[in-house]
């Protein structure tokens, strides 16, 4: 018999428990990617997770790091307080689209604009998962939710909000990228983006945000495999993947911002 070789193990930062996530949900994949990055940078001992209100509120049961829960939408403000009080910590918020782009829009925009040196992991599943499938700011036009039973209409709800585009319209943020966890290739890219964001934080560069297009089979009423296809075919065209800001590569001329 050929010798067995270990190619993958559970990351140390990921706790060995069954999650509460539904089959086919992207949160589990994203948790694992974060745990791998924490392991690779050996920062488990100084990382603090700021959990949101949403399906991932219990992320602290799965990631083996210090954690605090924030009120719905307020994670960036809590993270600001933590990082400013103890800059040695590696701090990240983990937020859904309702948390970040509806109730918490003010907090994320201003934390990004101050250049707070933490990382935001933004999970865009185009719906409110935890409360049972309501309209999200990122819900697509014609998408059926419990509060858009005839589909999202431009007349009543406006177009979906593109968070990476919004955040990268600000000058201060350091790194902003949109990725997807819809297939193995995308997952590998997503990991690279998360790693880059943490790298920049460790180097003290400023605000970093990674948006991950993700699935919600339960509330979309689409079975898991087809859900991932839905991410590719329906979400990605409106939410293009790519780097929206990387200040390690681009110089921004800000001389006109000063009145001196």
């Amino acid at each position, binding site marked *: 018999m050929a010798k067995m070789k270990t190619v993958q193990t559970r990351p140390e930062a990921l706790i060995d428990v069954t999650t509460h996530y539904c089959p086919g949900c992207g949160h589990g994949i994203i948790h694992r990617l974060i745990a791998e990055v924490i392991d690779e940078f050996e920062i*488990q*001992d*100084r*990382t*603090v997770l*700021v*959990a949101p209100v949403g399906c991932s*509120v219990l992320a*602290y049961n799965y990631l*083996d*790091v*210090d*954690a*605090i*829960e*924030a*009120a719905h939408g*307020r994670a960036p*403000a*809590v*993270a*600001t*307080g*933590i*990082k*400013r*009080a*103890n800059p*040695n*910590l590696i701090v990240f918020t983990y937020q859904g689209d309702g948390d970040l782009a509806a109730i918490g829009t*003010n*907090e994320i*925009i*201003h934390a990004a604009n*101050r250049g707070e040196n933490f990382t935001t992991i933004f999970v865009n599943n185009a719906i409110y998962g935890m409360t049972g499938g309501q309209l999200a700011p990122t819900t697509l036009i014609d998408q059926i939710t419990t509060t858009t039973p005839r589909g999202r209409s431009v007349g009543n709800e406006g177009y979906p909000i593109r968070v990476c585009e919004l955040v990268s319209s600000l000058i201060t943020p350091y790194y902003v990228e949109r990725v997807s966890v819809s297939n193995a290739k995308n997952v590998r890219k997503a990991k690279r983006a998360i790693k880059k964001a943490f790298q920049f934080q460790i180097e003290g560069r400023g605000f970093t945000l990674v948006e991950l297009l993700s699935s919600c089979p339960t509330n979309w009423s689409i079975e898991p495999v087809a859900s991932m296809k839905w991410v590719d075919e329906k979400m990605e065209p409106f939410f293009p993947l790519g780097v929206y800001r990387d200040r390690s590569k681009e110089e921004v001329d800000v001389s006109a911002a000063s009145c001196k």
Partner: protein
Amino acid sequence: MGEKQLLAGNEALGEAAIIAGCRHYFGYPITPQNEITAYMARRLPEVDGVFIQSESEIAAINMVLGAGATGHTAMTSSSSPGISLKQEGISYITGDEVPAVVVNVSRGGPGLGNIAPSQSDYFQATKGGGHGDYNIFVLAPHTVQEMADLTITAFDLAEKWRMVSMILADGVLGQMMEPCTFPDSVPERNYPKDWILDGKKGREKRLICSLYLVEGVLEKHNEKLQKKFKKAEKEEIRFEEKDVEGSDILLVGYGTSFRGQIEAKRQLGEFGVKAGLFRPITLWPFPYDRLSEIAEKTKMPALVVEMNAGQMLEDVRMAYERFAPVHFYGRLGGGIPTPEAVTAEVKKILGKG
């Protein structure tokens, strides 16, 4: 003790916070507390502290939570409309058992109201304010000196009990200038820090949260909180009293409304009426027992004077009315009770008009 200085209440409060070790302040502008925000913006960088003018009061209180979670007790200040916005955060911070100091230099309401001094946030401050079963410490200064002293107390109480301490002042106390002295330093506060988030190096991970979904666990958490509140109610009551025995009437007030009562007592003395004074310094915990004792022993009527429609009145009644009558005089929407009005009210009550 340092030199005597002539200072506005808001500045005295700011400097006292620095002396108490406050190195993190987060706030959003609102009158009549803007001098605190400006003072902290100037002073904190001088002591390697952090000042952020936040995007809203909601953000500010959540920054206070974040800093507090790392073991650095932070302060935020605002006035009534902004304090309403902070209530969600105050509820979370209490459930999380993180120390925090909140200052309310209150103004007239409801709504946008005005910027005149008011005590109409008494209910909000002392009866919870946000959602859930909880209390916070509420300290009511009545002089500039007390703005400073009670701020130092607020930091100690917050850390000792891992609770929110609120300074409940008003526009008069914030803006007026009086002599004030500061201690050179404050006693070291060595309360346990075995709960703070500083990375799980060499220990199990820690979690600060207020969510308890498993059946029965939230009840246990609440029981633990209530036990703490009950203990604090026994140990942390502060009040001031004067001539409560052998008087004809007891004047009860706090903060700015109490200042007029001091002068009313003098005026009444000239008229041959003896007035006792009673001033709760902690509005929570409230000195119910002492008020009951006074009422039972003296049976004299009490007059509660407030800058609201009768909010502390309810607490005084609870303690006092079993034994003696309780009267009320209040001004609304920014009005301040004058000593003359209080004196006239007393004469009416005693039938000496």
